[in-house]
């Protein structure tokens, strides 16, 4: 592991960008599928940061957390996609802007 070291800060900056793009996606996209994708991006940003930090401290913990996050993301998306199917069936659209029956 003595090869080229990418500075931690750089990775974190990348991760922050990913995180921000994820957030932006959440705010801008209407389609639920894209929202789920943005969510994935955000989770992955966190995961990436963990990996980089783990590398900095030369610990395996970072990677373990990465794995955990990955599985969490998978679980979220699994449930999410199930919901997507239902949404499509019920609302006949995936546009989340139409899903505002509850308000006030």
């Amino acid at each position, binding site marked *: 592991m003595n090869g080229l070291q990418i500075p931690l800060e750089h990775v974190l900056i990348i991760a922050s960008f990913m995180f921000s793009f994820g957030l932006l996606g*959440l*705010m801008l996209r209407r389609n639920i599928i894209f929202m789920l994708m943005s969510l994935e991006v955000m989770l992955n940003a966190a995961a990436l940061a963990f990996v980089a930090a783990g590398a900095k401290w030369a610990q395996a913990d970072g990677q373990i957390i990465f794995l955990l996050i990955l599985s969490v993301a998978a679980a979220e998306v699994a449930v999410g996609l199930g919901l997507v199917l239902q949404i499509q069936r019920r609302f006949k659209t995936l546009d*989340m802007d139409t899903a*505002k029956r509850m308000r006030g």
Partner: protein
Amino acid sequence: MAGSNYLWLIPFFPLLSATLLMVTAGQLPKKIIGFLGAGSIALSALCVALQAQHFLASGEIMQVTLWTWMSVANFAPGIAFYIDGLSIVMMSVITGVGFLIHLYSLEFMDDDSSYSRYFAYMNLFVAAMLLLVMADNLLLLYLGWEGVGVCSYLLVGFWYRDPANGKAARKAFVVTRVGDAAMALGLFLLFTELGSLDIQTLLLAADSKWQSGDLIPTIATALLLGGAVGKSAQLPLHTWLPDAMAGPTPVSALIHAATMVTAGVYLIARHYSLFLLAPITLEAVAWIGLATLLIAAFTALAQQDIKRILAYSTISQIGYMFLALGVGAFSAGIFHLMTHAFFKALLFLAAGAVIHCLHHEHNIFKMGGLRTRLPIVFWSFLIGSAALAALPFTSGFYSKDPILLSAWAMPNIGSYLWAGGLLGALLTAIYSFRLVFVVFFGEAKTLPNKQPGWKMSLPLALLCLLSIIGGWFVLPLDHVFPAYSHGEINHSVEIISIATPLIGLAIAYGLFLGKQLSISGFTQSTLGKALQSFCFSGWRFDALYQLLWVCPYQVLAQLWRNEPIDYLYRGIVSLMQWSNEQLSKLQSGELRWYATSMVFGLVILVLIMLRSLS
């Protein structure tokens, strides 16, 4: 049955009767009601007579405490009586005249459906009035004072189904309450300064503590004077009395002529030594008396309602009493109080008989020629008027004359007071004989439908007698008040005072009977009309008070009706509702907006955290 141990019986009889009548609420047979109502007063009068005899014989001042009313710290007024000559005089007047009026009422109120209620109130009144004059301390006096006020309210508004009566009753109560409030303040001041409300203790303490002319006794007496002015219908709180004539006529005779309205005179006389410490107040008493007697006399001239004339004459006569008190002639004041009680009760009862026999007619210009048709009433009225006008050898003459002389004897202002009093006497004679001439002479306009029975005639006769001989009574007041002498008596002054009523009589004769003189030319002129309506309205005092007090109060009440304070709280509620609506709008249900709001929150948090760097 005499002596201090039996004093409690005097107010007890009327009180018991009143309670019985109230509790049975008109369920008793009429005979028993009448028996209770008049009989209790008779018993009471009997007790007073016994006590008076005892007192005159022994000259001993009676004092008794029934029980301690309340005792807190050094404040311990009792339900206690103090009987001296002054009290005896007052008690005798109250029960004596009271009994006659009750007797008269038996017939007068005979056809009224609320017979029982009437006697209940009347008896209660007598009881309260007795307490007032028997009280040994100011608090018990105040109890009687307010008690008679309430009874007056009840009796003025006795025929409650006419709203006008109710209005008059409320006016009577509230206007006197203004005075009462001042009096209450006076009580607070006296207690705070002297540590007692016991009248004799208080007077002694005042004498030793203050010098004549000190500020505090001046304020205290001024406040007491406020109470007296209210109760005795003197300027500026006199406006209630004419309206109070809305009550049954015997009520007017008892309460608004003979007894209650003179309570103010009693109050001042009772505290004369305190008033002597406050010469300013005492002089004010004289001036108030003078102003009142003149204004009321002028007003009486212009009235047409028989009872209103008498009412204004009462105000005027009490003005004389105040004048007497103000110039320091306390005995003369009390003496006039007594004779006035006789002849004014007589006049009212006679007027009541006229009204009773004349289909409840009040307007004197619709009467006339009753001299022959109601002879007893005529003679009563004539004697009463003569006494009122202070014609020589009537009781009024014997009581009014000393007042005028005392006024004359007053240094500096004496002559003004005397002249004013004299003018008043002239006017008194004019309006009293105007009444006699218009009602009993001339042609008949309304015919009487009945004649007074013995229950009405007997009191009239007895009061006639009293009105004549009352002047020769010697009141046991020597030990109560300091001896008073006018110095040498100026004979010309005396002659003028004797002649004035006669001149008045002549004028009245000229104007209202003989038709030799006519002032119709004057009364038809604009100035005359204005003057007449000015006098008729009682110098526009009512309008003035309406403008000054009543209207502002009503307007204020209407303005505040919906609770200005509550707008503050409602404002808070509205603010909350508004915030709720605004915040609820943010809950749009849109997922993207929710995400955006979270991002906003996040950014703000980050910014706040980073602020710590700077």
